[in-house]
């Protein structure tokens, strides 16, 4: 195997590699990572001509480094804002201020301010850039903020260096039943394309160092905007109906009884029982499993858990009723994923009603949802509590 002109061939190959290569190479220290984005209405926007204000949160790596000697009080982020017509254009404007290449593939959260999503179709329009651009991931979390969204990107708790990281982990924390699941950009995009209604996490600033995730913003798919806010308690009701309340608590505090149950499991099943368009009837079966975590009740939870279960059924039923009423009458928007159920199980019916499901004719509002609640106390806790001590 003797190759003639071997040195020449090697030279060709080497120059092919060395002269053409490296065109996509950007060193890590030359990149600016966009970690969070906030979208607000600009101050100078008028009723008909909306101007958006985009805030990019860029990571400053040297501020993150905790290993170096001496605790630096350097900020780990840098927020840059600009106003303009559309987001991609604004982002381009922002890059004029930044010495490094902007890099959005590690984007973690997008926060829209309430006023942006309240405008019909503006939200949908401004979301396009996040789904159309190649370097956006479907796992980016989307949330709605009360007040200005860019203010949230300034909240730094003591233990987290990046506000976006704080918001992201905050959204993921599902220990309470009064919050919604984090909304992924991919799912959001699907809902928007199918024009379904859904709920979004709702954040507001508590103080300089904390944000609270409480309640949900209700988005009406047909109207293309936020129709209202569901507070924490009703969000819990909504989560129990959809079977999402796998953690959190339910407390009962009446004159004669006072206890708290921790939710550990929640299942729900919805069934269409009457297919008449104007009088749709749904049968909802909700199963809740809980643990007695705190009690000042006279009943012994160990021997008499039925009494607790009864109280819980009562409480949950009224909560659900309240929630359904709010959704049907006030918001007039399907927040219980009944739309998804109908689409999957009664497609022809859904096809005929989907244009008027929770707008216009509003079949959702006219439908009748009856609820059947079943509560199981799985165990009564560790303490062998007995208020009726026999013989002292």
């Amino acid at each position, binding site marked *: 195997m003797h190759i003639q002109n071997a040195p020449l061939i090697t030279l060709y190959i080497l120059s092919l590699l060395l002269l053409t290569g490296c065109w996509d190479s*950007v060193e*890590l*220290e030359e990149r600016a990572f966009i970690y969070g984005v906030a979208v607000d209405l600009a101050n100078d926007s008028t009723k008909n001509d909306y101007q958006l204000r985009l805030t990019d949160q860029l990571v400053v790596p040297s501020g*993150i*480094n905790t290993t170096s000697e001496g605790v630096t009080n350097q900020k780990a982020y840098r927020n840059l804002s600009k106003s303009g017509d559309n987001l991609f254009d604004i982002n381009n404007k922002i890059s004029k201020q930044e010495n490094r290449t902007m*890099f959005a593939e590690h984007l973690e959260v997008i926060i829209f301010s309430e006023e942006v999503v309240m405008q019909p179709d503006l939200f949908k329009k401004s979301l396009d850039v996040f789904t159309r651009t190649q370097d956006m991931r479907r796992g980016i979390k989307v949330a709605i903020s009360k007040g200005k969204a860019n203010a949230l990107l300034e909240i730094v708790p003591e233990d987290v260096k990046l506000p976006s*990281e704080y918001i992201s982990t905050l959204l993921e924390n599902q220990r309470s039943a009064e919050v919604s699941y984090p909304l992924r950009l991919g799912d959001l995009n699907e809902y928007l394309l199918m024009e379904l209604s859904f709920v979004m996490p709702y954040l507001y600033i508590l103080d300089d160092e904390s944000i609270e995730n409480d309640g949900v913003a209700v988005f009406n798919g047909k109207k293309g905007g936020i129709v209202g806010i569901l507070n924490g308690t009703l969000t819990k009701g909504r989560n129990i109906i959809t079977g999402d309340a796998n953690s959190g608590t339910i407390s009962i505090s009446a004159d004669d009884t006072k206890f708290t149950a921790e939710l550990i499991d929640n299942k729900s099943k919805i069934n269409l029982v009457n297919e008449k368009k104007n009088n749709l009837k749904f049968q909802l079966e909700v199963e809740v499993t809980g643990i007695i975590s705190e009690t000042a009740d006279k009943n012994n939870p160990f021997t008499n858990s039925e009494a607790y279960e009864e109280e819980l059924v009562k409480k949950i039923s009224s909560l659900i009723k309240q929630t359904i009423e709010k959704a049907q009458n006030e918001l007039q928007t399907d927040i219980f994923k009944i739309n998804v159920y109908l689409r999957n199980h009664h497609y022809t019916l859904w096809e005929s009603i989907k244009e008027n499901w929770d707008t216009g004719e509003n079949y959702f509002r006219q439908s009748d949802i009856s609820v059947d609640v079943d509560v199981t106390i799985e165990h009564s806790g560790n303490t062998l509590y007995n208020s009726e001590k026999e013989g002292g």
Partner: protein
Amino acid sequence: MKRQSKINHKKNEELSQDNSSFPIEISHYLEDNINIIKKMLGNPSDLIIRELTLGNQRKKAAIIYINGLIDNQLVQNNVLKEILSNQTETKTDLLDYLYQKIIAITDISKVKTLDDVSFGILSGNTALYINETDTVLLMGTASGEHRSIEEPQSERLIRGPKAGFIEDINTNISLIRQDIKDPNLRFETHHIGRRSKQKIVVSFIAGIVNMNIVNEVNRRLKSIDTDYAFSSGEVEQWIQDSFLSPFPQIGDTERPDRAIQSLLKGKVVILLEGTPFVLIAPITLVETFHSLEDDNQRWLNGTSLRLLRYLTAFIAIFLPSLYIALVTYHPEMLPAKLIFSIAASREGVPFPAFVEVVIMAITFEILHEAGIRLPKIIGSTIGIVGGLVIGESAVSAGIVSPIMVIITALTAIASFTTPQYSMAISLRLLRFCFMIAAAVFGLYGVILVYIVINIHIVNLKSIGVPYSLPFAPLFIKDWKGLVIRSPLMMLMNRPNYLKVTDKRKRRQTK
């Protein structure tokens, strides 16, 4: 090649000219013979010629040997003493009488050519010349100095025999013989080295081995034409299949147990005089990651250790190139927090990632090389200089990032887990190819080089046996013994990829 053969040709002529000044046959007269031997060897000071007179016939004789190569005790007691004390006997054929009755040495032969005599003397035999006789008695009295059997330094095992091969080939052969008492164990001897005339022994077990492999090895060994094979490494390079390949195509070992295991698998073991490293052929890629430890431990441990070694081989080859590719081309492929902390550690580093990696990798290679070359006592200082001074201060001086030090260290340690040292150094070399590819094309380049190497491996052969066995061609039944280490009950048969004659290895007793 043409040029080389010309040189060889010239050499041949020179050598034959040297020889032609001496007669081929042994002279009839002792005086002549002694003179010829003296002249031939240049009358060295260690050439001992003991002249004596034999029996009633008053025949002149001489014992010739080279001091230091023979066992003095043996020559004195079993040869000289015996001959001198049996002076009274008279026989017609004195040489035959001595051969039959007097000399108390088992390994004794009659030779008739000067070439044989000189080779015998130089190999440590003692020659007995008798005046007016054409035949010379050559007595195997070779002893020479060699070290005792020690634990092999290059391949250590926790559980396993502590014996290693030594420089003496006869000891090495006996180490193999001791463990396999099979009459089918064969040792075929060749001599290589135009000037050194070293013994090289091809060992195999007839009845297991595929004879095509043995024939091919013998054919290749016969083609060796060199002055002196300074180690088995030279023999390896003479008989390997592809000299351009970065991979070792013939295994080497210092351990008799490994050699024996290979023999029983149906392989050929080549022993060379003067080196403790024996060659094993053929080998495959996957076998270079096998350690005897796998078989010595219980199968679960053996399998997991083997899998660990595949992982470390992957790390040793790919880690630096993955770092370059991910950091400069694809930062989106790492979790956000990891990329931020890498970015943070890279703040202030003046070099691009590739240069940083190359600096550290070459620094490590320098340290490694220095550590091997230095005497043991100074060797430990290399660790201090390398680890503390260079590693620590390079980071604090801001020349390299701490992440880079971790990657270099992990890569270095990982490359030492490969049991076959020749494979480990090949992996080190390949690492640089991957690094360059990663710097030029990112992950795309890494994959390209990976494909190129795979194509090469599939084409590579070891003594005509595909290197990529048992993957391609596929011998899926051999995977349980070669890729993982299955329980012994599942390993009843020898791996079949070498087309062994006797497939059964273990039998279940009923």
